[in-house]
């Protein structure tokens, strides 16, 4: 069957037959880097057109339908436009920080791609503290937003950054605790091990109530962490015009924009990996016939299917709910989600110790 791991093996053998092991490794790193950049751009294009089509579907309209078949090349045309636009730097801005901020946003999004398993045996870096790495790196993204807001010399940007700082730092707690629930069940931080532990059933099914609660909390928290509506207070179009990226234009704006979408992809990929079994097919107990049929669907299809389902859910949120106010946003986290997550962890620990999970 066609799979990513076979392509990877083929490239490895092909390079190995011409170069020594050091150069093979370097060449492979270059290929991986280019692939990540390519994936970054591709995901941006796909997710933007997906968002526009999903929103059009929800809002009883057609969405982009002029460029390419059914408007599918619209985001490519938009990218071209953004590339040729002048990237302005406002007069009173801190030029260094202003120009640095979008790159940090982008780099964080790229770094987060490393431990994600896109298909069976297809992972850039399967480090043994994968989940810890993800939570650690993702918290850097707030710095880029704060930097952009501060350096823009614009009060709307500053307010947006201020809100975003409070929001991301708070919601990371809930997201972290939700992830921890699964870690308690698996006892392992390595992404490949977490996926392997779900061979006979995904954690959302195996983990009883705590896993379901953790999943819901995780989805809410990551929606807030990626600054998506109803938690898009950092941008809050009707209040702060465009929040922290008000002053950005051209490709620098596009980098923020792309980073947002890639971040959405990444958090959904993490959600799919932890709760929905990553690339693991859907297996139901002793239904060997059913399980066998499920195995025929390629692992990459499983991974992307689950991830895009979660992305769709997050987009659905955005086009349905009104925005929260900043104090309500923090109340939701500190008064409801955080105590609930802590209780949930206790419950999960009890279940794990008693061995009640499947």
């Amino acid at each position, binding site marked *: 069957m066609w799979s990513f791991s076979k392509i990877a093996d083929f490239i490895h053998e092909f390079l190995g037959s011409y170069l020594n092991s050091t150069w093979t490794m370097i060449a492979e790193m270059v290929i991986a880097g280019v692939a990540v950049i390519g994936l970054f751009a591709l995901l941006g294009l796909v997710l933007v057109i997906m968002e526009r089509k999903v*929103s059009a579907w929800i809002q009883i309209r057609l969405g982009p339908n002029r460029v390419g078949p059914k408007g599918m090349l619209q985001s490519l045309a938009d990218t071209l436009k953004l590339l040729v636009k002048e990237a302005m730097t406002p007069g009173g801005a801190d030029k260094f920080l202003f120009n640095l901020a979008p790159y940090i946003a982008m780099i964080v999004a790229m770094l987060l791609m490393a431990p994600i398993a896109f298909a069976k045996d297809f992972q850039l870096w399967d480090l043994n503290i994968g989940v810890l790495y993800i939570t650690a790196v993702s918290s850097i993204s707030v710095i880029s937003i704060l930097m952009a807001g501060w350096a823009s010399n614009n009060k709307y940007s500053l307010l947006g950054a201020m809100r975003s700082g409070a929001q991301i730092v708070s919601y990371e707690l809930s997201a972290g605790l939700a992830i921890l629930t699964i870690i308690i069940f698996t006892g392992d931080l390595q992404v490949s091990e977490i996926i392997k532990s779900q061979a006979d059933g995904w954690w959302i099914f195996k983990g009883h109530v705590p896993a379901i609660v953790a999943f819901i909390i995780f989805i809410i928290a990551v929606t807030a962490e990626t600054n998506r509506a*109803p938690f898009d207070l950092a941008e809050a179009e009707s*209040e702060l015009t465009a929040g922290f990226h008000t002053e950005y234009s051209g490709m620098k704006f596009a980098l923020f924009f792309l980073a947002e979408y890639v971040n959405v992809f990444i958090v959904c990929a993490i959600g799919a990996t932890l709760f929905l079994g990553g690339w693991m097919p859907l297996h139901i107990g002793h239904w060997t016939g059913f399980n066998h049929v499920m195995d025929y669907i390629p692992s990459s299809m499983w991974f992307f299917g689950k991830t895009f389902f979660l992305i769709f859910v997050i987009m659905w949120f955005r086009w349905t*709910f*009104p925005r929260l106010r*900043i104090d309500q946003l923090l109340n939701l986290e500190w008064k409801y989600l955080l105590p609930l997550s802590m209780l949930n962890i206790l419950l999960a620990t009890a279940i794990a110790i008693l061995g009640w999970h499947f």
Partner: protein
Amino acid sequence: MFEEIGTNAEGDMMINMGPQHPATHGVLHLVITLNGETIKKVDPHLGYIHRSIEKMCESLTYRQFIYVTSRMDYLSAHINNHACAMCVEKGMQIEVPGRAQYIRVIMDELTRIASHELWWGAMSMDLGAFTPFFHSFRERETINDIMEETCGARLTMNYMVPGGVMNDIHPNFQRRVKEFIQLYKRKIHEYDELITGNVIFQNRMKGVGVLTAEQVISYGCTGPVARGSGVSCDVRKWWPYEVYDKVEFNEVIETGGDSFARYLIRMKEMDQSIRIIEQLIDNIPDGDFQAKTKAVLKLPKGEFYSKVETARGELGVYIVSEGGTTPYRIKFRSPGFSNLSILHDMAKGGKIGDLIASMGTLDLVIPDIDR
């Protein structure tokens, strides 16, 4: 004025919201004094879309000046025209035929529904929900189609003339209005499911932007803003004009005084408008759609005042005539101006998000404020 912007003497941040800002729905300029996110002072600066409509009216004849007023509160253009036509009729002592009165009221109420539907979408957009805007436009489009068929225009109708309406209604009019009523009744529950019942929405609205009846009266607020604080002020009930005294409808009053009360008022007013149209649409009497008037209208010397209930509140038209073909002086008492003046009291102490939410429930139309 502009030097002081930045930070003030107490070190509070001052921010210019507008004249180009997504939430001010036009060119309203708010200078906001902020302590962190908390609002200390809101100072609306007006005049960005001042077109001196009142002055323009002085050089237009009594037939012509009516149409300029469509551009004041463009969302209830028909009702503005109605107020002006009524004022001229009062001066000329023209008896409006029954058919014209019925048509006028039906069109008024259709305009009111269209205006409230646009408000519903725009206010939801202020709160960060984009989808309602498209849903409300779906129904509003039907009203616009009816308007287009009746008088050829969709937004600024110019359908009123002193003494009646410009043309008779289209043969399809009654059928299409009834179709719209059916459509409205089928779809209105979607509005409640999408927004009214939403927990986030209710949290954003309840207890926010509270106005007491005392404040509302002292600022001269009218329309849904006043009725949201329990002040009965519906011109259609208190000083009935045309056929409003012949139809049954309730003046919607809420006593909450918060943004949610004002929201509910407008939602229920749409139902009442439907109720009025239902009573009138089958009973439009035969006869003339326009009274016989002279080609050149000359108001007798004196002062004339008429008022109507627009979608935003009480619109008063005051004409001073010297006996010529053009008015000597015209003054409009627009509801938006008084409603805006209460903004500081409403938003003080709240967050920026509250300001936007409660400003949305004021239903401001900036050309109506500046004129």
